[in-house]
């Protein structure tokens, strides 16, 4: 790769990811055609379903909230060179923290509870990420395998707790008792009503605002603190970091625990904001979507916000789609998600050599013209 030149930033973070994304959507279009439906019709329904009416926008942003948290979680670990496949499990255990806090400290006033719930979600999520992090940092076990294992362990643990411990007496469904009404996160439409603004009701709640705050905090942390700098150094070159006096193990653990905490925050939206109780599998694969969100957003909080919005739109639009076209279910969204990860993640370098060639040729021609 010695003769290639550096691509300018607008191609590197703009054009190339966009080309990959377009490829993913083109293949998705082919899939839609293959099962005998009209892709343009599908796009029209999805856009209408996601943004066409006020309630839909609320739903879109509600999904976006989950994806911001899980996307940020994956990205922070990624900056330390780690693949945290365990976002799903960490979010699940984070939900346990939120539920325990809300159920057993229910005498707390809401503002205090808000802080306690955030801390509980962070603590439980981070704790679940700590073990794989420790094993990676100190014993060299690969974090990808251990986090996958921890997803399954979390799933078994939570089923056990929900069936045997948290289920209220006399209830047949394996879910926790309901959280006290005063302690749930206020819906945005209710908050708007306080100011006399009329909004359609949707599951969108206060946690969306917190997700945006987290975007800013993660940005500050990764690019404007010495810890963030150390984490990025470890991710870029662990050997060089060691020579610079940065101990990789310490920052691997730090990055993973922050990642786990951010995963846990997803539970604020789902458990405290919408379901108001702990349900089996409430994470519903959102943790895995976080991988796609972070990769597409190039692990930058702003990019993550945009791609979380895109996935929020896909999820809400996909729900509308399954109403309108019965042959297309939510699985279509899963397919698109897989294709997006494949094209923007695994195949991210596919167009690079060709684009570099074209760009180099273009620059060369410009230079000769300038010389002439």
């Amino acid at each position, binding site marked *: 790769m010695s003769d290639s030149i550096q691509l300018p930033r607008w191609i590197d973070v703009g054009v190339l990811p966009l080309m990959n994304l377009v490829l993913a959507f083109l293949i998705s279009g082919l899939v839609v055609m293959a099962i005998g439906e009209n892709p343009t019709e599908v796009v029209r329904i999805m856009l209408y379903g996601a943004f066409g009416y006020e309630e839909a926008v609320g739903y879109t942003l509600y999904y976006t909230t989950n994806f911001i948290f899980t996307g940020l979680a994956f990205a922070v670990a990624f900056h330390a060179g780690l693949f945290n496949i365990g976002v799903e499990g960490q979010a699940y255990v984070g939900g346990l923290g939120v539920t325990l806090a809300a159920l057993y400290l229910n005498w707390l006033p809401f503002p205090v509870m808000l802080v306690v719930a955030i801390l509980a979600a962070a603590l439980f999520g981070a704790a679940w990420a700590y073990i794989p992090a420790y094993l990676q940092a100190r014993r060299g076990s690969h974090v990808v395998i251990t986090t996958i294992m921890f997803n399954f362990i979390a799933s*078994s643990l939570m089923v056990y707790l929900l069936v045997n411990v948290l289920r209220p007496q006399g209830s047949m469904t394996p879910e926790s008792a309901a959280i006290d009404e005063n302690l749930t996160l206020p819906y945005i439409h209710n908050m708007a009503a306080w100011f006399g603004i009329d909004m359609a009701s949707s599951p969108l709640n206060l946690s969306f605002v917190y997700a945006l705050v987290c975007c800013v905090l993660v940005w500050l942390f990764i690019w404007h603190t010495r810890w963030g700098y150390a984490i990025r150094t470890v991710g870029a070159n662990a050997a060089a970091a060691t020579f610079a006096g940065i101990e990789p193990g310490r920052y691997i653990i730090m990055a993973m625990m922050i990642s786990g905490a951010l995963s846990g925050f997803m539970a604020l939206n789902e458990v405290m904001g919408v379901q108001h109780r702990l349900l089996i599998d409430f994470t519903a694969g959102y943790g895995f979507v976080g991988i796609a969100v972070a990769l597409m957003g190039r692990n930058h909080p702003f990019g993550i916000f945009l791609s979380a919005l895109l996935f929020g739109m896909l999820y809400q639009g996909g729900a509308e789609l399954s109403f309108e076209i019965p042959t297309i279910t939510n699985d279509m969204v899963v397919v698109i998600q897989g294709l997006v990860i494949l094209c923007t993640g695994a195949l991210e370098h596919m167009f690079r050599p060709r684009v570099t060639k074209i760009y180099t040729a273009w620059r060369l021609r410009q230079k000769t013209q300038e010389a002439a």
Partner: protein
Amino acid sequence: MDNFQMIVLLLDATMRTSTPLILAALAGMFSERAGTINLALEGMMLGGAFSAACVAYYTNSHWLGLGAAVLTTMGLSLLHGFACITHKGNQVVSGMAINILMSGLTALVGIALFAQGGKTPALDHSARFQPITLPGADAVANVPILGSLYSELISGHNILVYVAFLAVPASWWVLYRTRFGLRLRAVGENPGAVDTAGISVVGMRYKSVLCSGFLVGISGAYLSTAQGASFLSDMTAGKGYIALAAMVFGKWRPFPAMFACILFGFLDAAATRLQGVILPGIGEVPVQLVQALPYILTVILLAGFIGRAVAPKSLGRPYVKER
């Protein structure tokens, strides 16, 4: 039913539950021994199971179903290779992408074809792999202990079970006793040396993922046309990941991986039977704990508390010719 009979039945079930794990674990081994991480086992297994069920349903032939499954998974392997080997993409990401893609695609196409909520229609007897009675099994069935071991445990499985257990020595032979196997392992440890010897690293790695696809395809077909009688959406239910764990647990070697698969298969078979059973002296065993045991054991192993699992040296690193 006496205890001996119960144990034989439990081991019998273990044979059936560990079969897909063994095939998938061997598949993962071929790919990873050559340096390509294969997290896509789960998705490939799912894709294989779906194709097998569809083709077996339309053609009424389980052999054609098996062929379709193997073709599907080898195609997916090529896709994985295209991303990881040709374009040097991230292998973990590619594997996750294939898993997610197949989880959606099999359900979507299943609904489009059969409109049964992602299921395929139930297969006839003739479209499934049937149990084979080994010679002499009926004759010795009444002999105490050994007879029932032979007729219950060894005999009476479908051919894919035997294929899986025979694939273990076969894989061992290929990996450790052939030139191909030596080169394959060398590519995973030190691709630069292999390249210097004039052997294509890219070619070897493609061959290894194709081997991987071939084996995992059989395990997919086993799920939907031998063990089950139709495809159900997400029917692999994490088996690909358990196989991956078993492969790591077996330290990337065929026979230890097989024993890990049998252990994990046994835990799976035991978990279903332990539901609500109260063991003397222990009390009720939480089924979830038994289900989580394979994962917990693998983590403990990886942490270096039960020997050391050392991965192939170049695992996960795309080969770059000039540096």
